[in-house]
């Protein structure tokens, strides 16, 4: 297929380790053959005893009637539905047989086999979905049209610097001043002055059941020096955990020597971890925990690093793309739509959605975007600038677009009435069509875990704006474990894999220099996260990444239910990866309706979609 350019062939052996997905823990099975289970009776050996033990655990883990035998193999079927599922499978099979008998091609031409699939772990719902399409009379126009290749390409072109291209060819009958509401609301001024986060010395009492399971592995090269390096990092972290700073200090010095002998990703990762450890060891301790230097000077720099991370590897693009796809599907058929973006930054996510909406069959809806971002150190209004650029693009492609920017120190400061806001320009008053809301958060929610109650507050706010869909992109790792050593270990595995993927992939349009530069900046972007996880404590430790299973538990507790992301988004996300070095090392996976992107088999970021529990998938247009 594609020629592979591998930079780090110097160390061929890398291990990727994983934490346990909590919902699917441990692979239980229910043993039916009691007559085989006389564990005491000798001869049968240990593995029957293991089976017996598994069975014991299964009976503890009440899983609302989900059949354990199939659950162990990745499928969720309620025991009481088993026979029903069998019958439906049979119906489908017969339908396929008969259509195959009629004509070999009919089967494959049938819309049901081009249809979008959702959540295949849930065999019952999956089969229902296909059956209903099979029985649907004439093929309906396919739902959200796959964004044509052109729009995919555009997504990559649309760095803020590249938006000029859309300012040409303005359309006469739109006057931006009439159409777009670009000024931040007056209320933002008061938000801006609100108190900053309080330092909270205690850990948030939010340790979820997840701490139980996860035990992770490391990315190692199997050469002796690499293994010693990882051991030294672990030993240092352990000394820190035991408050033996003298020993830790001695080890951290060795680490830099060991790291120098390494090549590629491992050396870089070890460097960032060692630096963070050193900060932790040598910084004067305060009872409130280690203080960190993340001040406002760095915001612009952060944005720059973010931009490079966006450009040089597929993670953020994957997050944006899958979230957009879910939003697009949720907006199908709606004439007035509103996206609330919890982390506007440079607005990189929205050109692609604007384009997809513009190409929608039946014409684009009226699109309102509310962008939220932190205060800028120089009091500049970057949110407004981003809004202008998006407005220009919207005008060019003729999407009715309005924009508001909100400056908020913390998402927890937001109130529902601010987000929904009254229509200030009088537009829409005569419009009976209700506005359909989507809330989007990319790498934002985990920061809220640093302040107790903040996440709950924000999830309450989300529910109050009654969104049709909530899209969440988060790092797929638990960097919020109870002990320092847990966090350190998981982070070491996670970032080693991340760094390895940066070595192994090339972004689409890149000269070698641009590539190296982009990679170095991306590493720095990740390095800041490493620093925060390892060196910071208390409210300043904001990179509190948690795994999908933990988010699922939090969202469900707060009254949300999952909206499965379908095979359509999966396919397109997979094709997107082909732009990165043939996509060989990257893999998209579907897990319980969520999509994750990983390097080889290690999932690294995950997109999930949610709605208020109990809401029908598509409420009728009338309120």
């Amino acid at each position, binding site marked *: 297929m594609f020629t592979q350019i591998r930079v780090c062939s110097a160390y*061929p052996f890398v291990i990727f380790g*994983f934490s346990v997905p909590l919902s699917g823990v441990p*692979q239980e099975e229910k043993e039916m053959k009691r007559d085989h289970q006389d564990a005491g009776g000798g001869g049968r050996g240990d593995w029957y005893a293991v089976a017996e033990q598994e069975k014991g655990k299964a009976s503890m883990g009440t899983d609302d009637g989900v*059949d354990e035998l199939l659950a162990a*193999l990745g499928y969720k079927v309620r025991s009481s539905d088993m026979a*029903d599922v069998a019958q439906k499978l*049979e119906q489908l099979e017969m339908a396929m047989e008969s259509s195959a008998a009629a004509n070999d*091609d009919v089967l494959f031409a049938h819309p049901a086999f081009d249809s979008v699939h959702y959540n295949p772990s849930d065999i019952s719902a999956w089969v229902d979905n296909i059956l209903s399409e099979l029985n649907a009379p004439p093929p309906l126009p396919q739902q959200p049209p796959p964004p044509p290749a052109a729009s995919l390409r555009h997504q990559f072109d649309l760095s803020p610097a590249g938006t000029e291209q859309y300012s040409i060819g303005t359309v006469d009958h739109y006057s931006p001043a009439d159409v777009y509401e670009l000024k931040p609301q007056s209320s933002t001024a008061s938000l801006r002055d609100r108190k900053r986060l309080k330092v909270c010395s205690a850990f948030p009492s939010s340790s979820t059941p997840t701490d139980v399971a*996860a035990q992770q592995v490391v990315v190692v090269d199997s050469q002796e020096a690499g293994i010693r390096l990882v051991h030294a990092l672990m030993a240092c972290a352990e000394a820190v955990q035991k408050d033996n700073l003298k020993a830790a200090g001695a080890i951290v010095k060795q680490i830099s020597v060991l790291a120098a002998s390494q090549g590629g990703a491992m050396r870089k990762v070890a460097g960032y971890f060692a630096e963070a450890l050193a900060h932790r060891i040598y910084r004067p301790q305060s009872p409130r925990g280690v203080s960190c230097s993340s001040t406002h000077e760095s915001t612009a720099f952060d944005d720059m690093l973010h931009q490079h991370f966006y450009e040089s590897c597929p993670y953020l693009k994957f997050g944006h793309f899958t979230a957009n796809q879910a939003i697009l599907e949720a907006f199908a058929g709606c004439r007035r739509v509103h996206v609330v973006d919890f982390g506007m930054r440079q607005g990189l996510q929205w050109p692609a959605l604007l384009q997809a909406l513009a190409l929608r069959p039946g014409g684009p809806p009226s699109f309102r975007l509310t962008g939220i971002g932190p205060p800028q150190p120089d009091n500049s209004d970057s949110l407004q600038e981003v809004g202008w650029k998006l407005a220009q693009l919207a005008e060019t492609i003729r999407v009715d677009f309005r924009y508001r920017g909100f400056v908020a120190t913390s998402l927890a400061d937001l109130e529902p009435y601010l987000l929904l806001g009254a229509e200030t320009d009088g537009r829409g008053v005569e419009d009976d069509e209700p506005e359909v809301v989507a809330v989007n958060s990319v790498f934002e929610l985990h920061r809220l875990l640093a302040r107790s109650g903040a996440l709950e507050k924000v999830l309450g706010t989300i529910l109050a704006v009654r969104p049709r869909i909530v899209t969440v992109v988060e790092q797929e790792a638990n960097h919020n474990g109870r002990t320092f050593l847990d966090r350190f270990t998981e982070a070491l595995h996670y970032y080693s894999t991340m760094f390895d993927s940066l070595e192994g992939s090339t972004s689409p349009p890149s000269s070698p220099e641009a590539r190296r530069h982009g990679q170095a900046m991306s590493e720095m972007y990740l390095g800041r996260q490493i620093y925060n996880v390892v060196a910071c404590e208390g409210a300043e430790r904001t990179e509190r990444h948690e795994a999908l299973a933990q988010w699922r538990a939090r969202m469900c507790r707060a009254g949300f239910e999952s909206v499965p992301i379908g*095979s359509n988004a999966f396919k397109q996300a997979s094709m997107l990866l082909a732009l990165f070095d043939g996509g060989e090392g990257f893999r998209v996976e579907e897990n319980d309706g969520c999509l994750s992107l990983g390097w080889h088999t290690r999932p690294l970021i995950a997109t999930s979609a949610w709605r208020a529990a109990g809401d029908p998938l598509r409420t009728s247009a009338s309120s």
Partner: protein
Amino acid sequence: MAPPADDVRGLFRQELRIQLLERRPKGKEAACFASLCFPNSISDSCRYCSVSAHDGGKQRGERQRVEGMDVPSPSSPWIWDKILEFVEFLRCPVLPVLAMLRFGCVASDLGGFILISMVVPLHTWVLISNFKLAYNMVRRPDGTFDRHLAEFLDRKVPANASPVNGVVSFDILINRASNLLARIYRPAPPNSSHPATPLAGLHHPPSPDQFPVIIFYHGGSFAHSSSNTAIYDSLCRRFVSLCGAVVISVDYRRSPEYRYPCAYDDGWEALKWASTEPWLHSGKDSKLRVFLCGDSSGGNIAHHVAVRAAESGIDVSGNILLNPMFGGNRRTDSEVRLDGKYFVTIQDRDWYWKAYLPEGADRDHPACNPFGPNGGTLKELPFTRSLVIVAGLDLVQDWQLAYVEGLKKAGKDVKLVYREQATIGFYLLPNTDHFYEVMEEIKNFVSSNL
């Protein structure tokens, strides 16, 4: 409640076998036989009629099978009347019974009542039918394959270095140039519950004594599944517990994107890799005690890798082939007899061979038919001993039996385990005697050839 008898008959296409029960059940006791309809779902109570199954369980032990009593004819109205009568008697929802009728059901005469049970347990039927459905959707008649949808539908499990039932797993890139991954399963190293140590022990031998290394090639007819597919993750974990082994599950390249001989090359690469890893060597002689194992296409790969090993002088302790995928140009008796029954059709088999074999090759290619007209001989090679598991309801069985004959003719040591009533995939779920007895065979084969 009961559908019209005609519909019922339409569903019922399998041959019926009758089992007689020695005594007629009475009252509540009889109702418990509903749970016997679903031999794998016998628990404390029948799931379909909420009646305690304890008595039924006892009955089960006493049940006597009378072979060879064929129903007058599958379409006989008599049998259907009896079935409907039975369903009514149980006051069970009729659907479960209909669902299971589809598949190799066994009807028993209770002296007035018909008891139906299945050759294929309901769980297995659901699992494999679900695969069949998914596979039918991703395979296109023109020989192309919807890989994205296949990956979407495939259920995967991440590696997990925390011990689950004493087994840990991790993924390793054994060849960065070819991106060849393998998932390694091993008994948990001591102290592995300490967060900082799992890594430390991963590359140490699990035992000071000799232990087996099993290189596992997953099934999926060369086109489906991978080393992180949930069904194979589960099976490999079993092998660790069963044999005290380190299991290396190879993520070989799949067809139709990668045809012959890519899968064999990757399989061979994994064996060579294992032979250079010091921690996989064991015993006083510090030897790699390696078994090659696989189901379906994986069994085929195991054979071909073992041939290369024999040619190259790498010692393999044994081959374990579960329902291995072989074939040939001519149609065998079992292919004709079982076509379209028990999940598999000849048409599917042909598609997979066409997708895997070199362009233009036919099924007498030695990859497919190793002892056929184009096959070589193993007579001169130090080819290892084999354990071959054959399911009597698998249409490929004649080719598997021919393979066993071929090995015998070449003077090789081979043990055939033939399970007459087993179907493809029986080894994925611990819900039949076939499962337990075959696992026991594998365990014995490994321990006696270590």
